[in-house]
């Protein structure tokens, strides 16, 4: 059976963990190799700095903005964005963390594990920027919208992602994108952040060896 593993919290018992990654590993169990280094640490920093500027520009300042990161790596990214915005705008943006596990549409289809406590500041009347590492099928973002709207009524919700890898299954798009990365479905985008993972920041594209599929 081939199932697409589209979220970091859908672990698959019995398979080897291929190491730090933003998305799940390829479901077929076939060996995967590093295809491309998409971002090194400097690229990642520049992309986040640009997204931070775009958020402030789009919202005419940061006074009304709340950043809400999705577990696990989205939380780390949202904190970095808040630091960046404070450094050039002088505004301390409230930051929250959201666990969407209980709102997923694949509960019961695969093991789903809660990733951490939801801690979101008051969002009523605010512009909430949801932050995640990789946008793929859009199902995590859909679950995040449901989870967020039960916590309050934001004036608007925007979506910021480090990598948009395509293959959307729902009518969603991101407002702020670090990198548009065309991928094949069997490939795997791995985001490494020093707050969560071992080693330096980076984004890598992994997939089956050339000629294997």
């Amino acid at each position: 059976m081939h199932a697409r593993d589209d979220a970091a919290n859908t672990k698959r018992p019995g398979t080897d963990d291929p190491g730090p990654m933003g998305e799940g590993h390829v479901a077929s169990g076939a060996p995967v190799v590093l295809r491309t280094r998409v971002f090194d640490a400097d690229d990642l920093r520049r992309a986040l700095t640009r997204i931070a500027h775009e958020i402030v520009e789009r919202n005419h300042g940061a006074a009304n903005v709340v950043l809400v990161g999705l577990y696990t790596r989205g939380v780390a990214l949202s904190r970095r964005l808040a630091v960046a915005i404070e450094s050039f705008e002088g505004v301390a943006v409230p930051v929250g963390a959201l666990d969407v596990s209980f709102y997923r549409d694949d509960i019961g289809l695969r093991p789903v594990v809660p990733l951490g406590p939801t801690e979101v500041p008051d969002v009523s009347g605010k512009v909430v920027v949801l932050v995640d590492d990789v946008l793929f099928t859009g199902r995590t973002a859909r679950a995040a919208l449901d989870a967020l709207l039960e916590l309050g009524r934001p004036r608007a919700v925007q979506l910021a992602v480090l990598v948009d890898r395509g293959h959307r299954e729902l009518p969603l798009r991101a407002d702020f994108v670090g990198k548009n990365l065309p991928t094949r479905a069997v490939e795997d985008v791995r985001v490494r952040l020093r707050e969560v993972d071992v080693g330096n920041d980076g984004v890598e594209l992994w997939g089956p060896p050339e000629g294997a599929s």
Partner: protein
Amino acid sequence: MKHLLAVDDLAELDTSGPVATSLRTGIESMLDLTASFVEVTQRDIPKVPALRGKTVVSLFYEDSTRTRLSFEAAAKRLGADTMTFSVATSSVNKGESLLDTVQTIEAMGVHAIVVRHSAAGAPHRVASWTSASVVNAGDGRHEHPTQALLDAFTLRRHRGPSLDGCRVAIVGDIANSRVARSNVVALRALGCDLTLVGPPTLMPSRIDGWPVAVSYDLDDVLADVDVVYLLRIQLERIDANGADVRFPTLREYSARWGLTAPRAARLKPDTLVMHPGPMNRGVEIAAEVADSVRSLVTEQVANGVAVRMAVLWSLVGSGGPVV
């Protein structure tokens, strides 16, 4: 983990990816999971759609207030539908057997059955008859695993995350207590040092092999313990006028094994007091001790809902076929 019939089943907890490697890691995973649900219960809208479309039945052959309400609140806060079966208003009064009752419930399409029964082992029988997940909410003198989980969770919030070396005295009617049995297994697995305290007549007839110390004198152990866990004197199982009298009077019990105010004054300043409820105030616990800052009794009840959410989620929600 398909069913939660006894604390030992948690050794097979598999919600966090790899199957738990030991009873300790299984219990700890469940307690970690509970923390996520505590946050949910504290929201303005304390409800998530995690078990939407699932049905949870509570099948209670024995009286209960907090356990039944707690399971129902847990199921509802997970978005599940609930059905309640209470013996008093059911066809059991027309002579329907447990098997027929379970098959009737099964035919309605349910995902989890929460069973309380006065006969030890009844939930195991139910589990063998149904494809739904079964949760033991107390069976006779055998086990009450969700009580042990909520006690461990509450204790961990005050003494944790590690309970290694935490000294717990479990006091009272050990022989009749399923709460004591489940807590001995769970707290020992988490590293607690346990002492059972009570009159010899309320100790199990065979206690060899239990990982505990035994004392017949509460005053001997008071000064050394971190937690005093008081059990309810089960008046419905020990009729003071009946044949099974194991101590002369409730007043004598209270005088020798009750946590009275003078005894509480001899505890260390940070010793905690726990009780599974319902309390017999003035018997095993004095009212002023039950209401003191040491007492975790209301916190135990509050955490019960989150623990049962975690259990129902583990059995019905997160599992799913592993492909």
